[in-house]
């Protein structure tokens, strides 16, 4: 019964998402949702390596940027058709991430975090200094996504559906991954690399796979970003972007399936709502982040899951108590 209730809820959400542009013809709201969709995909990417596999990567702003810049450069400089460039951009990023992963994954825990932070910073500096990428000026003139059959991508509504499509695809992908043997293997590595290794799991190979998947998702997100914003600057590879992605993930709930979507939505909307504070919004935003982490260290979805588990346990204990009451009485009589 519970299952169906959940399914109904999800269906309702889906229908709402599909109807939104028709019911609410506000471009600003659409813009926000489009950005939420794009970011969420990157957050799912980070969730794969950090949430599932337990390796905190701070290089993901870099992969996001590589995906975006690859698309930009392939379409502008090489003149490759849009969708071919789109696929190539993701392929290029995964190849790059493969080589970075081979080296970076030899380091563990915070070493890995800072190592990837440095890699991210190097990617940023390369984009920033290189002539090819347009340096500080950035990359201008990325074309609209080419029409696919009768579908064209000019209006903001069409962009909305395009991003929604890729988001749903990503969620489906993550859902399958979460419930697969491979997903369970990733989680085992997160729990203990040492033990996983004694159990004959090739830790390096699995971590590398998770890393490449996660970079691939980040680059998908980057390529979508490039096709939507159509201007790229080096600041998109900045470490702050990596922090931001991480923040979305943590607010939502790391290692959970729904966390990335919920976290990204909440944080993006919250930052927009705090706009009225102008230059002082960080003065409020910072403490909100701290409070959230203090009270929900596992994020919103993680907090909910814990609450549910606790409630289930309480129920069990209560049930057990009613049955053991009798025994207790006996013990006293003894």
């Amino acid at each position, binding site marked *: 019964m519970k299952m169906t209730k959940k399914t109904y809820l999800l269906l309702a959400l889906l229908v709402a998402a599909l109807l939104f542009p028709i019911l609410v013809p506000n471009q600003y709201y659409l813009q926000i949702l489009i950005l939420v969709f794009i970011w969420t995909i990157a957050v799912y990417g980070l969730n794969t390596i950090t949430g599932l596999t337990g390796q905190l990567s701070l290089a993901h702003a870099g992969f996001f940027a590589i995906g975006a810049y690859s698309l930009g450069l392939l379409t502008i400089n090489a003149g490759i058709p849009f969708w071919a460039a789109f696929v190539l951009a993701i392929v290029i990023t995964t190849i790059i991430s493969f080589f970075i992963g081979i080296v970076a994954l030899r380091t563990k825990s915070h070493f890995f975090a800072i190592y990837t932070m440095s890699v991210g910073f190097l990617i940023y500096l390369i984009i920033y200094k290189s002539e090819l990428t347009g340096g500080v000026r950035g990359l201008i003139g990325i074309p609209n996504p080419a029409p696919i059959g009768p579908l064209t991508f000019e209006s903001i509504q069409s962009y909305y559906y395009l991003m929604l499509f890729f988001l749903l695809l990503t969620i489906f*992908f993550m859902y*399958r*991954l979460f419930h*697969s*043997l*491979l*997903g*369970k*293997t990733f*989680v*085992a590595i997160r*729990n*203990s690399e*040492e*033990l*996983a*290794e*004694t*159990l*004959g*799991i*090739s*830790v390096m190979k699995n971590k590398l*796979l998770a890393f490449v*998947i996660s970079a691939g998702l980040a680059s998908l997100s980057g390529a979508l970003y490039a096709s939507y914003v159509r201007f790229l600057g080096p600041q998109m590879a900045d470490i702050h972007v990596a922090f931001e992605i991480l923040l979305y993930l943590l607010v939502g709930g790391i290692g959970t399936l729904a966390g990335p979507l919920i976290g990204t939505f909440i944080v993006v909307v919250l930052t927009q709502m705090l706009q009225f504070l102008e230059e002082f919004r960080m003065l409020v935003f910072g403490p909100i982040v701290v409070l959230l982490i203090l009270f929900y260290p596992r994020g919103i979805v993680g907090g909910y899951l814990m609450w549910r588990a606790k409630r289930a346990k309480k129920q069990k204990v209560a049930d057990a108590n009613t049955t053991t009451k009798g025994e207790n009485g006996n013990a006293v009589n003894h």
Partner: protein
Amino acid sequence: MLLTINQLTKQFGGLSAVNDVSAVIEESKITAIIGPNGAGKSTFFNLISGFHQPTSGRIELSGQDITNMRAEHVARLGVGRTFQTTHLFEQATVLDNVLIGHRLRTKAGLFDAIFRTKRERDEKKKCLDKALEALEFVGLTSLAYEQAHSITQEQQKRVAFALALATDPKLVLLDEPAAGVNPDETEGLSEVMKKMVKRGKTVCLIEHKMPMVMSLADHILVLNHGELIANGTPKDIQKNERVIEAYLGGNSNVSA
């Protein structure tokens, strides 16, 4: 011979934790390794299971050279192990722990995961069956859905057994399986080990609990300062002067 060890040496800095040890471990038997603290027993296990690489010497498993193989590879060839301090996936249920134990015998990858192929479904079922079987073997079926960190020491030891068994090993290395377990339950663990041998596994254990070792082991290796000082049946060992002096002590409660 299931396992043949030839002049194995491991040095940490200047210290020889294992020094020129040669020994064999027979198939379908229980071999116990005993010796004082710091004698190099755990290091010995670590070398066999590929956790450490030996400084010199050679290890063969059923004739195959595994001397410098990495742990994961050794496990796939059929060596399962437990650690001295119990080591489980703490943040997972008992069942999920054991389920992952069989992962090394499966092949499903990313493609299978996403498209939920037949292979994925079959292998998942296989892992589950294997896990349930292993849990039943150690008598923990009822705890399958508990979190691994919330069960007792002795139960955790059993989960560790199940985990090792789920890998389908030929040889099981158990590092002090009964440490911190009370006598009553120690017997229970002994039974499990005997059962393993009955099922065709070869068991090799490190233990300081002499009553258990003496009644259980077919064969005993004694290490001291990294060197093999004695090698024989429990009876031989109990009488061995060097072992008594270095390890057992005069009035040890060997048969208590």
